[in-house]
């Protein structure tokens, strides 16, 4: 039944097939230079295929795959950051190989896993079947578990183990929620695949049993929320970010969290279409705000640079989940924009941090000082990135946060207080740390950086442009999705 959308040549097939072929190829090929290039080329091709989704005719929603306005944004963002990260990864990995932290065998595994992960994430975005989506999210998560543990140090193993344990709890809850959704759909739609097809579910959800939907959503929110890194379930996130290779930190923050968020959004749309089910908004807003305020305070006590930005990711995912929880055209718009801006900015920051940590040979914040003096390109890149993520104008993050705050003031003035409070606390922490890292008396190694600046600055440029001028077609597109999300 899946045949028409899966096998006829179309952009969707390309987005899925290129990473798979590349992964198989990379698993077989020796030599890091060629494999790094293939990794970049495959990521670029996938990105091109994703862009072609805009122009090619969309396949009708099948039993397995779906392309709609919502997921195109996610796929394009995903493949773009996947591509730039592969560029960064090529220069980062060369250094890791020199210093002997990774062996050529590790590297072959790493590149193959990178493509498998891209496949998993793309599959999660295009899947129209909630079971398939679950499998895809898990695939993407497990490949990252393996990559987090790739250095085999004490800390890396601890991080990977923790990620695996918490991730599997998430796996279990999300699957249980998926089964409950199926059970809710089964009396209305009938047995078999149709009762797991998202487009059919949305059409008929109004007739589902609301109590069962409620319980299902709670499991799904907890399950996928673990992967989004929402506050009570976030414990894996800082370790996984800090101990894995930095390209993986960039992909984790920039992309994998979005994948889980996308899953939550799909189910939120589902629940919102049933008038008698609980409204998912308050739950999401509570978890979002908790994450935001908690992570904002945690930022102050960080001594590890990657760990600090991991907490900043929790903070921003909190903001995004809050925005989607608040709902309504404006808040949804702000949430979408913020998600895109956060992905771009945070991965740019991790690109800078990766090179900095390599030069200094440490991730300790206290050992990194005066970067703008010793390594101006990296240092200023980091300054711009942190200024952007902290929400300073004229960057894109400022705009999305501004939209969200004004929308919150208009609709839920009381909730705006913790929101603004959390934003300010995080702002203070980031600037405090930034001044130490970027300015002052240089400390540590001064050896010149063998870095690739293109990925970092291209992301930052995009964020800057988005802060100053958003092209009207993009605004129209986002507004359309914002209405779709309710």
């Amino acid at each position: 039944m899946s045949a028409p959308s899966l096998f006829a040549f179309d952009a969707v097939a390309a987005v899925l097939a290129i990473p798979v072929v590349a992964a198989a190829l990379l698993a077989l090929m020796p030599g890091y230079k060629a494999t790094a290039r293939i990794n970049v080329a495959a990521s670029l091709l996938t990105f091109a295929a994703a862009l072609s989704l805009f122009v090619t005719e969309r396949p009708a929603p099948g039993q397995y795959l779906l392309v709609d306005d919502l997921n195109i944004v996610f796929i394009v963002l995903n493949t773009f950051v996947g591509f730039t990260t592969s560029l960064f990864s090529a220069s980062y990995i060369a250094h890791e190989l020199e210093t002997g932290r990774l062996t050529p065998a590790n590297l072959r595994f790493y590149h193959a896993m990178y493509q498998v992960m891209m496949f998993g994430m793309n599959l999660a975005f295009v899947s129209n079947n909630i079971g398939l989506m679950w499998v895809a999210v898990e695939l993407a998560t497990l490949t990252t578990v393996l990559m987090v543990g790739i250095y085999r140090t004490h800390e890396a193993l601890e991080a990977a183990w923790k990620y695996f344990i918490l991730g599997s709890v998430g796996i279990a809850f999300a699957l249980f929620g998926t089964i409950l959704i199926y059970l809710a759909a089964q009396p209305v739609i009938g047995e078999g695949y149709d009762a797991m097809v998202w487009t059919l579910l949305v059409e008929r959800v109004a007739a589902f049993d609301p109590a069962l939907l409620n319980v299902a959503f709670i499991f799904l929110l907890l399950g996928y929320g673990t992967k989004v890194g929402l506050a009570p379930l976030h414990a894996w996130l800082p370790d996984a970010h800090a101990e894995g290779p930095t390209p993986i930190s960039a992909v984790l923050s920039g992309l994998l969290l979005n994948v889980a968020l996308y899953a939550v959004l799909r189910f939120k749309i589902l629940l919102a279409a049933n008038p008698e089910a609980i409204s998912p908004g308050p739950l999401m807003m509570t978890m979002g705000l908790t994450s935001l305020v908690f992570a904002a305070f945690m930022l102050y006590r960080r001594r590890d640079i990657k760990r600090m930005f991991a907490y900043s990711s929790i903070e921003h995912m909190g903001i995004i989940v809050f925005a989607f929880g608040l709902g309504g055209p404006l808040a949804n718009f702000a949430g979408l924009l913020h998600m895109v801006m956060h992905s771009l900015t945070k991965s740019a920051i991790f690109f800078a941090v990766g090179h900095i940590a390599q030069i200094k040979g440490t991730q300790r914040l206290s050992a990194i000082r005066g970067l703008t003096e010793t390594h101006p390109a990296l240092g200023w890149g980091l300054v711009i990135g942190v200024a952007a993520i902290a929400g300073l104008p004229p960057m894109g993050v400022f705009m999305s946060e501004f939209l969200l705050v004004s929308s919150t003031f208009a609709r839920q003035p009381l909730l705006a207080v913790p929101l603004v409070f959390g934003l300010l606390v995080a702002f203070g922490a980031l600037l405090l740390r930034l001044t130490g890292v970027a300015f002052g008396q240089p400390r540590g190694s001064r050896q010149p950086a063998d870095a690739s600046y293109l990925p970092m600055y291209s992301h930052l440029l995009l964020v800057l442009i988005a802060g100053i001028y958003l092209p009207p077609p993009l605004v129209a597109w986002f507004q359309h999705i914002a209405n779709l999300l309710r």
Partner: protein
Amino acid sequence: MQGPVYFDIAHMLAGGLVLVSMMMLYQDRLYALLNVFALHSLLLTLSVAWQAFIQGAPHLYVTAAIALIFKVVVIPVALHHMIRKLGIHREIETVVGIGATMLAGIGLVALSIVVMLRVTPEADPLTREDLAFALSVLLLGLLIMVTRRNAVSQVVGFMSLENGLVLAAAGAKGMPLVVEISVAFSILIAFIVIGVFLFRIRERFDTVDVRALDDVRGRRRK
């Protein structure tokens, strides 16, 4: 095919799974824990096979066969072998005392029964009770994972949790992808757990006690 006997047998098997999950909570030796886990998986196999029979769903026999071969035989034997090789067949250290764990377990079973029975008043009684038991098994598996420090017993906890999910999926009538999901889980367990983690942990620490990992963190205090 529905009748009191069919229902009773399904009920007994699923209830047996919950009971064996409770038994796992108080095992304080790794070998014993593995044996109980094998029993757990055997009950799951029977339960899924019975569901396959009463639902007339032949694909569930595949799931049952996977559970039988993989979780009743291969995994316990492999873990036995590994424990012997690593020389860790000592007592398992638990985080919380057995008594408190059992009480928590009883609470979780009660919770899942209250939740599931309340939200599914119109569903088929077989599905309802199956779901309530499945959720209990899932939560008990979770409890095993959080109350054990030893990596092997955490893995066993995860596998018993997964048994609960397979039970739920098999009980949901006509649910597609059940076979695929159980295959995916088996691969996951085989690869991640046995292949990568235990050997790597062994390589680095000479122990599979997860506390050794925590100590590292404690020293570094970030």
